[in-house]
Protein backbone atom coordinates (compact mmCIF):
# COMPACT_ATOMS: atom_id res chain seq x y z
CA UNK A 1 0.00 0.00 0.00
CA UNK A 2 2.83 2.27 0.97
CA UNK A 3 4.61 1.48 -2.31
CA UNK A 4 1.66 2.78 -4.31
CA UNK A 5 1.99 6.16 -2.70
CA UNK A 6 5.60 6.53 -3.81
CA UNK A 7 5.82 8.59 -6.96
CA UNK A 8 8.73 9.21 -9.29
CA UNK A 9 10.04 12.14 -7.24
CA UNK A 10 9.89 10.17 -3.97
CA UNK A 11 11.92 7.31 -5.46
CA UNK A 12 14.51 9.76 -6.76
CA UNK A 13 14.84 11.39 -3.35
CA UNK A 14 15.06 8.00 -1.66
CA UNK A 15 17.81 6.84 -4.01
CA UNK A 16 19.77 10.08 -3.60
CA UNK A 17 19.47 9.74 0.17
CA UNK A 18 20.70 6.11 0.00
CA UNK A 19 23.62 7.03 -2.23
CA UNK A 20 24.67 9.75 0.19
CA UNK A 21 24.94 7.10 2.87
CA UNK A 22 27.32 4.88 0.83
CA UNK A 23 31.04 5.03 1.57
CA UNK A 24 33.50 6.47 -0.98
CA UNK A 25 35.15 3.15 -2.22
CA UNK A 26 31.70 1.69 -2.97
CA UNK A 27 30.72 4.80 -4.91
CA UNK A 28 33.96 4.62 -6.90
CA UNK A 29 33.37 0.94 -7.74
CA UNK A 30 29.78 1.65 -8.81
CA UNK A 31 30.88 4.55 -11.02
CA UNK A 32 33.60 2.39 -12.56
CA UNK A 33 31.11 -0.46 -13.28
CA UNK A 34 28.66 2.01 -14.83
CA UNK A 35 31.34 3.48 -17.11
CA UNK A 36 32.37 0.00 -18.25
CA UNK A 37 28.77 -0.94 -18.99
CA UNK A 38 28.25 2.29 -20.97
CA UNK A 39 31.45 1.65 -23.01
CA UNK A 40 30.29 -1.88 -23.88
CA UNK A 41 26.85 -0.57 -24.85
CA UNK A 42 28.35 2.12 -27.10
CA UNK A 43 30.65 -0.41 -28.82
CA UNK A 44 27.73 -2.73 -29.45
CA UNK A 45 25.48 -0.03 -30.88
CA UNK A 46 28.07 0.90 -33.57
CA UNK A 47 28.44 -2.76 -34.65
CA UNK A 48 28.16 -2.67 -38.46
CA UNK A 49 24.95 -3.64 -40.22
CA UNK A 50 26.72 -6.52 -41.99
CA UNK A 51 27.75 -8.10 -38.70
CA UNK A 52 24.29 -7.65 -37.22
CA UNK A 53 22.66 -9.22 -40.28
CA UNK A 54 25.12 -12.11 -40.12
CA UNK A 55 24.47 -12.48 -36.40
CA UNK A 56 20.71 -12.66 -36.97
CA UNK A 57 20.99 -15.24 -39.77
CA UNK A 58 23.60 -17.18 -37.80
CA UNK A 59 21.26 -17.48 -34.83
CA UNK A 60 18.34 -18.39 -37.07
CA UNK A 61 20.11 -21.70 -37.73
CA UNK A 62 20.13 -22.51 -34.02
CA UNK A 63 22.50 -22.23 -31.14
CA UNK A 64 24.15 -25.63 -31.55
CA UNK A 65 27.70 -25.66 -32.88
CA UNK A 66 26.79 -28.58 -35.18
CA UNK A 67 23.85 -26.66 -36.68
CA UNK A 68 26.12 -23.72 -37.50
CA UNK A 69 28.64 -26.02 -39.15
CA UNK A 70 25.85 -27.48 -41.26
CA UNK A 71 24.60 -23.98 -42.10
CA UNK A 72 28.06 -22.94 -43.29
CA UNK A 73 28.49 -26.12 -45.34
CA UNK A 74 25.05 -25.63 -46.86
CA UNK A 75 25.84 -22.01 -47.73
CA UNK A 76 29.13 -22.93 -49.43
CA UNK A 77 27.35 -25.71 -51.36
CA UNK A 78 24.62 -23.30 -52.49
CA UNK A 79 27.20 -20.73 -53.64
CA UNK A 80 29.15 -23.36 -55.61
CA UNK A 81 25.96 -24.78 -57.11
CA UNK A 82 24.66 -21.33 -58.13
CA UNK A 83 27.99 -20.35 -59.70
CA UNK A 84 28.20 -23.63 -61.64
CA UNK A 85 24.57 -23.44 -62.75
CA UNK A 86 25.01 -19.82 -63.87
CA UNK A 87 28.14 -20.50 -65.95
CA UNK A 88 26.55 -23.65 -67.42
CA UNK A 89 23.53 -21.59 -68.40
CA UNK A 90 25.80 -19.05 -70.11
CA UNK A 91 27.78 -21.79 -71.89
CA UNK A 92 24.61 -23.60 -72.96
CA UNK A 93 23.05 -20.43 -74.26
CA UNK A 94 26.04 -19.70 -76.49
CA UNK A 95 24.23 -19.37 -79.77
CA UNK A 96 27.04 -17.37 -81.40
CA UNK A 97 27.59 -19.84 -84.25
CA UNK A 98 23.97 -19.74 -85.37
CA UNK A 99 23.59 -16.01 -84.72
CA UNK A 100 26.65 -15.08 -86.77
CA UNK A 101 25.47 -17.32 -89.60
CA UNK A 102 22.04 -15.63 -89.62
CA UNK A 103 23.52 -12.13 -89.38
CA UNK A 104 26.17 -12.61 -92.08
CA UNK A 105 24.46 -15.13 -94.37
CA UNK A 106 23.18 -14.29 -97.86
CA UNK A 107 19.53 -14.57 -96.80
CA UNK A 108 17.83 -11.61 -95.11
CA UNK A 109 16.80 -11.86 -91.43
CA UNK A 110 13.08 -11.65 -92.21
CA UNK A 111 13.36 -15.01 -93.99
CA UNK A 112 13.90 -16.57 -90.57
CA UNK A 113 11.55 -14.30 -88.61
CA UNK A 114 7.79 -14.96 -88.62
Amino acid at each position, binding site marked *: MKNKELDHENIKQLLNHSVAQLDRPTLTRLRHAREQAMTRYAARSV*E*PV*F*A*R*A*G*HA*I*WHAFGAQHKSRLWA*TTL*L*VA*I*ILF*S*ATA*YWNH*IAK*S*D*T*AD*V*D*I*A*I*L*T*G*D*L*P*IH*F*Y*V*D
Partner: protein
Amino acid sequence: MHLIRHHLFAFSITILLFLPAIAGAQTWESLTPVQQEALAPLSKEWNTLQTLQKQRLINLAKRYPQLNAVQKQRLHNRLEKWSKLTPEQRNRAREKFQAFSKVPLEKREQVKQMIRQQEAEKLNTPAVDPALTNTP
Protein backbone atom coordinates in the same frame (compact mmCIF):
# COMPACT_ATOMS: atom_id res chain seq x y z
CA MET B 1 36.68 -13.72 -34.06
CA HIS B 2 32.95 -13.79 -33.36
CA LEU B 3 32.43 -10.56 -35.33
CA ILE B 4 34.64 -11.68 -38.27
CA ARG B 5 32.67 -14.91 -38.56
CA HIS B 6 29.38 -13.02 -38.73
CA HIS B 7 30.86 -10.61 -41.27
CA LEU B 8 31.96 -13.51 -43.49
CA PHE B 9 28.58 -15.17 -43.20
CA ALA B 10 26.62 -12.07 -44.19
CA PHE B 11 29.12 -11.25 -46.98
CA SER B 12 28.74 -14.76 -48.46
CA ILE B 13 24.97 -14.41 -48.55
CA THR B 14 25.26 -11.00 -50.22
CA ILE B 15 27.62 -12.42 -52.87
CA LEU B 16 25.20 -15.31 -53.43
CA LEU B 17 22.26 -12.97 -53.96
CA PHE B 18 24.11 -10.62 -56.30
CA LEU B 19 26.08 -13.28 -58.20
CA PRO B 20 24.12 -12.97 -61.48
CA ALA B 21 24.26 -9.18 -61.39
CA ILE B 22 28.02 -9.13 -60.69
CA ALA B 23 28.74 -11.65 -63.44
CA GLY B 24 26.57 -9.85 -65.96
CA ALA B 25 27.70 -6.28 -65.36
CA GLN B 26 28.94 -5.34 -68.86
CA THR B 27 28.83 -1.67 -69.78
CA TRP B 28 29.61 -0.35 -73.28
CA GLU B 29 32.76 1.29 -71.93
CA SER B 30 34.03 -2.04 -70.53
CA LEU B 31 34.02 -3.67 -74.00
CA THR B 32 37.27 -4.04 -75.93
CA PRO B 33 37.82 -1.84 -79.04
CA VAL B 34 37.21 -4.88 -81.30
CA GLN B 35 33.93 -5.69 -79.51
CA GLN B 36 32.88 -2.05 -79.75
CA GLU B 37 33.64 -2.03 -83.50
CA ALA B 38 31.71 -5.26 -84.04
CA LEU B 39 28.70 -4.04 -82.06
CA ALA B 40 28.92 -0.37 -83.09
CA PRO B 41 25.29 -0.15 -84.35
CA LEU B 42 24.15 -1.01 -80.81
CA SER B 43 26.32 1.53 -78.96
CA LYS B 44 23.35 3.74 -78.03
CA GLU B 45 21.02 1.06 -76.71
CA TRP B 46 23.72 -1.27 -75.32
CA ASN B 47 23.14 -0.36 -71.68
CA THR B 48 19.41 -1.05 -72.03
CA LEU B 49 19.90 -4.62 -73.31
CA GLN B 50 19.33 -7.63 -71.08
CA THR B 51 22.31 -9.44 -69.52
CA LEU B 52 21.85 -12.64 -71.50
CA GLN B 53 21.47 -10.72 -74.77
CA LYS B 54 24.65 -8.75 -74.03
CA GLN B 55 26.53 -11.99 -73.29
CA ARG B 56 25.33 -13.48 -76.59
CA LEU B 57 26.35 -10.39 -78.53
CA ILE B 58 29.79 -10.40 -76.89
CA ASN B 59 30.22 -14.03 -77.92
CA LEU B 60 29.16 -13.00 -81.43
CA ALA B 61 31.70 -10.17 -81.47
CA LYS B 62 34.50 -12.71 -80.84
CA ARG B 63 33.92 -13.98 -84.41
CA TYR B 64 34.04 -10.49 -85.91
CA PRO B 65 37.80 -10.42 -86.75
CA GLN B 66 37.38 -13.58 -88.87
CA LEU B 67 34.63 -12.08 -91.04
CA ASN B 68 35.31 -10.66 -94.50
CA ALA B 69 34.30 -7.12 -95.48
CA VAL B 70 30.92 -8.14 -96.95
CA GLN B 71 30.02 -10.20 -93.86
CA LYS B 72 31.02 -7.31 -91.58
CA GLN B 73 28.80 -4.99 -93.58
CA ARG B 74 25.87 -7.42 -93.39
CA LEU B 75 26.39 -7.84 -89.64
CA HIS B 76 26.28 -4.08 -89.12
CA ASN B 77 23.20 -3.72 -91.34
CA ARG B 78 21.30 -6.45 -89.49
CA LEU B 79 22.40 -6.04 -85.86
CA GLU B 80 19.93 -3.31 -84.97
CA LYS B 81 16.94 -5.18 -86.38
CA TRP B 82 18.18 -8.38 -84.69
CA SER B 83 18.47 -6.72 -81.27
CA LYS B 84 14.96 -5.29 -81.59
CA LEU B 85 13.40 -8.74 -82.03
CA THR B 86 11.88 -10.37 -78.96
CA PRO B 87 13.86 -13.28 -77.41
CA GLU B 88 11.13 -15.62 -78.69
CA GLN B 89 11.50 -14.30 -82.25
CA ARG B 90 15.27 -14.75 -82.11
CA ASN B 91 14.88 -18.31 -80.79
CA ARG B 92 12.38 -19.05 -83.56
CA ALA B 93 14.80 -17.61 -86.14
CA ARG B 94 17.59 -19.86 -84.80
CA GLU B 95 15.32 -22.89 -85.01
CA LYS B 96 14.33 -21.98 -88.56
CA PHE B 97 17.95 -21.46 -89.55
CA GLN B 98 18.94 -24.85 -88.13
CA ALA B 99 16.00 -26.52 -89.87
CA PHE B 100 16.91 -24.80 -93.14
CA SER B 101 20.53 -25.96 -92.76
CA LYS B 102 19.31 -29.58 -92.81
CA VAL B 103 17.53 -29.12 -96.14
CA PRO B 104 19.55 -30.66 -99.06
CA LEU B 105 22.01 -28.18 -100.59
CA GLU B 106 20.31 -28.19 -104.00
CA LYS B 107 16.90 -27.36 -102.53
CA ARG B 108 18.50 -24.74 -100.30
CA GLU B 109 20.09 -23.02 -103.27
CA GLN B 110 16.74 -22.98 -105.08
CA VAL B 111 15.09 -21.30 -102.09
CA LYS B 112 17.93 -18.79 -101.83
CA GLN B 113 17.62 -17.98 -105.52
CA MET B 114 13.89 -17.50 -105.13
CA ILE B 115 14.36 -15.18 -102.14
CA ARG B 116 16.99 -13.16 -104.01
CA GLN B 117 14.59 -12.71 -106.92
CA GLN B 118 11.82 -11.60 -104.59
CA GLU B 119 14.17 -9.13 -102.93
CA ALA B 120 15.31 -7.81 -106.28
CA GLU B 121 11.70 -7.39 -107.39
CA LYS B 122 10.90 -5.55 -104.19
CA LEU B 123 13.73 -3.15 -104.83
CA ASN B 124 12.66 -2.95 -108.46
CA THR B 125 16.23 -3.54 -109.55
CA PRO B 126 17.85 -6.48 -111.35
CA ALA B 127 19.11 -9.42 -109.24
CA VAL B 128 22.60 -8.77 -107.96
CA ASP B 129 25.55 -10.97 -107.14
CA PRO B 130 24.55 -12.91 -103.94
CA ALA B 131 27.93 -12.28 -102.36
CA LEU B 132 27.20 -8.56 -102.39
CA THR B 133 23.65 -8.76 -101.04
CA ASN B 134 23.49 -6.70 -97.89
CA THR B 135 19.78 -6.98 -97.25
CA PRO B 136 19.11 -6.57 -93.52
